[in-house]
């Protein structure tokens, strides 16, 4: 074989064999929930591949041009060069529309996969010492993914995303003291500015992806360094990892997962319409679209803006515009608590020990209850972000829907907290694994025809 001398030659110079051997032997625990992060990773790969394709045709330019492509309703209308290029991608570039749609679906599923992965980490306590740093990296990655999504959503320069940018502008400008400066710095002037599209583009295709991919590499490097945490399956201790080696077992699992993830995304991109900008029309400063929603992962931010009563607070001579509290303070606090959670928990419980074995959610009722409550806040804010559509679905007036959600945002998380706590306690006190059969009670029939229980021995 010609390959072997070549490999030997390379190994003599780089000494990679030992490293590769260790890598191939890395042990992966045998539980499906450890694959959730991988799903996010493979979505990212699909995003990068389709994104590169889109970048070849996209024009980050707000200059007005006259649309003259094949889509009759837009022909002759004045649109930005950016919008024009996305229309060209959709109707003239071969496979352009399916690439666009795969990219957009992949973005939605990417963030969803990150959220589910994060929930797994949270509810099993995988963020505890020594993994706090990787938790922080993970939160950073989530933030980057959200920013990627929001910048990407705005690139087509259609009416819907333009409405979204307008909302972002009004939130930024509402930050006390620095708001107007910050808004001008980011947008390059008063909204709408010709600069914003090219700026978003640079962020979306260069800065943020570089940070995101770099962050993922750090995330994985730390994972390898720590080795996997694991559930307390028989044989698992704080000192070992029980599972299967990367080669040959995990490689096949991961490859299969990658292919199937890509297949699902391609299927969606090919079969289900997403973001039909040709119907929304080009951005126009004098019009707003309706119903106007951001993509789901930003819906909770919009929902907070819609739920929060429009009050301006004036204190010590400064006025805090109403979007500040729901638009800046609330997400700031939410992310702050999430970021600091490992440290808060260690501080409250006084548990500073290293943990390689994961908790079952029922073993930490308080943490689980907090997590559920937080999740419910998120869900209700997200519903509020689509209040007009939700109202339509349930046949309720929009105003009534908003009031229902205003009550729900307080009541439901509290209820969820209490209920979860009770259920966890109950389950934990029984100390039964889910699905485990209850020990049966043995009865003996007495001579008189009655029954009595045989005491378990």
């Amino acid at each position, binding site marked *: 074989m010609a390959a072997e001398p070549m490999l030997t030659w390379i190994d003599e110079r780089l000494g990679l064999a030992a490293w590769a051997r260790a890598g191939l032997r890395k042990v992966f625990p*045998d*539980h*499906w929930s450890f*694959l959730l992060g991988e799903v996010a990773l493979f979505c990212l790969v699909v995003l990068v591949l389709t994104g590169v394709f889109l970048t070849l045709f996209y024009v980050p330019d707000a200059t007005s041009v006259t649309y003259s492509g094949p889509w*009759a*309703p*837009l022909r*002759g*209308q004045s649109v930005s060069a950016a919008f024009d290029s996305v229309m060209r991608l*959709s*109707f003239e570039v071969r496979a352009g*529309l399916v690439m666009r*749609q795969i990219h*957009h*679906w992949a973005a*939605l*599923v990417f963030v969803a*996969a990150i959220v589910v992965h994060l929930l797994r980490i949270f509810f099993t306590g995988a963020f505890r010492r020594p993994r706090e740093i990787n938790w922080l990296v993970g939160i950073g990655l989530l933030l980057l993914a959200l920013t990627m999504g929001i910048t990407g959503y705005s690139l087509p320069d259609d*009416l*819907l995303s333009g409405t979204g940018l307008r909302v972002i502008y009004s939130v930024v400008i509402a930050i006390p003291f620095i708001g107007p400066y910050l808004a001008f710095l980011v947008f390059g002037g008063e909204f709408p500015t010709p600069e914003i599209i090219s700026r978003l583009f640079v962020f979306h295709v260069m800065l943020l992806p570089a940070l995101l991919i770099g962050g993922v590499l750090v995330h994985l490097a730390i994972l390898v360094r720590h080795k996997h945490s694991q559930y307390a*399956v028989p044989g698992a201790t704080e000192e070992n990892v*029980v599972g299967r080696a990367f080669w040959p077992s995990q490689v096949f699992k991961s490859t*299969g*997962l990658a292919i*199937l*993830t890509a297949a*699902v995304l391609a299927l*969606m991109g*090919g*079969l*289900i*319409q*997403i*973001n*039909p900008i040709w119907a*929304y*029309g080009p951005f*126009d400063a*004098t*019009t707003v*679209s*309706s*119903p*106007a*929603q*951001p*993509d*789901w992962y930003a*819906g909770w931010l919009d929902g907070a803006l819609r739920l929060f009563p429009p009050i301006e607070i004036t204190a010590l001579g400064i006025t805090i515009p109403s979007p500040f509290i729901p638009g800046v303070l609330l997400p700031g606090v939410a992310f702050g608590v999430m970021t600091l959670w490992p440290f808060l928990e260690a501080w409250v419980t006084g548990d500073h020990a290293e943990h390689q074995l994961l908790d079952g959610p029922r073993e930490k009722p308080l943490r689980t209850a907090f997590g559920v409550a937080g999740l419910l806040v998120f869900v209700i804010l*997200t519903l509020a972000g689509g209040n*007009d*559509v*939700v*109202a*339509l679905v349930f046949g*309720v*007036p*929009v*105003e*009534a829907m908003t009031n229902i959600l205003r009550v729900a945002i307080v009541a439901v998380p509290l209820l969820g907290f209490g209920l979860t706590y009770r259920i966890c306690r109950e389950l934990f006190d029984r100390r039964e694994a889910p699905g485990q059969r209850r020990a049966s009670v043995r009865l003996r029939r007495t001579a008189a025809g009655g029954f009595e229980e045989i005491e378990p021995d």
Partner: protein
Amino acid sequence: MTGPMPRLRLLALVLLAAGAVGALLPGAMAKANHSASLREASHSSLASDSDVNAGHAVFNARCATCHGDAGQGTALGPSLVGVGGAGADFELRTGRMPFSGSPGTQAVRKPPAFDDATIRNLVAYVASLGTGPPIPEPRVDTAAVSAGQHLFIANCAPCHGATARGGAVGGGALAPPLDVATPVQVAEAMLIGPGEMPVFSSLSETDRNAVVSYVAYLQTQPDPGGVSIGGIGPVPEGFVGWVLGLGLILVVVLVVGRDWRGSRA
């Protein structure tokens, strides 16, 4: 006892199915015929064969309880003086009138309550009550769809949605989807502003024709990009992304993550 029962049930099932087909088919066919006759009717709009007196008679029987003996209006219904042929034609052909909902609720589209001749008589009578817009005769022109889209997005999309799939307007009212409204009805709606909808008589006739053309275009053109999930943007998209996208992938995860050798400790 078990003998005849299944056969009886089968018979019942067959009868039921036949009944359902029988009930649905004529309805569907009538709908098709109806829209054909609508187009014809609109061309001969206020033709001489309509009879104001006959219209008045039907009006007294079916409308006067709410709109008054001379269409002057009552507590139950607004005055019809000045709504013109357009208003009456729209309300009657979309089945909104005679109103049958509970007071204060929105009039909704139903199959029309009257045949074509009766509608023409009623329209002639209501038109004779005062000066109002006559039934318009819009021109559907594919060359106008571009201007039409621009106007539609600015004027109609805020309530009816960019793809005209309908939306909530506030106060519990719904802007209905525009998938079945005929060109005449679209033009009439702009002239009279039914229910919570504003009047768009400020648009020129050319502009109104352009809007009508775009709505007609939306009703017939193919919708590129695959299955349209509502055409109202990110809410259904996010839902599908989670349920179908992540849902399918989680199934994959469960399958891949399973220990197929069955040797899990």
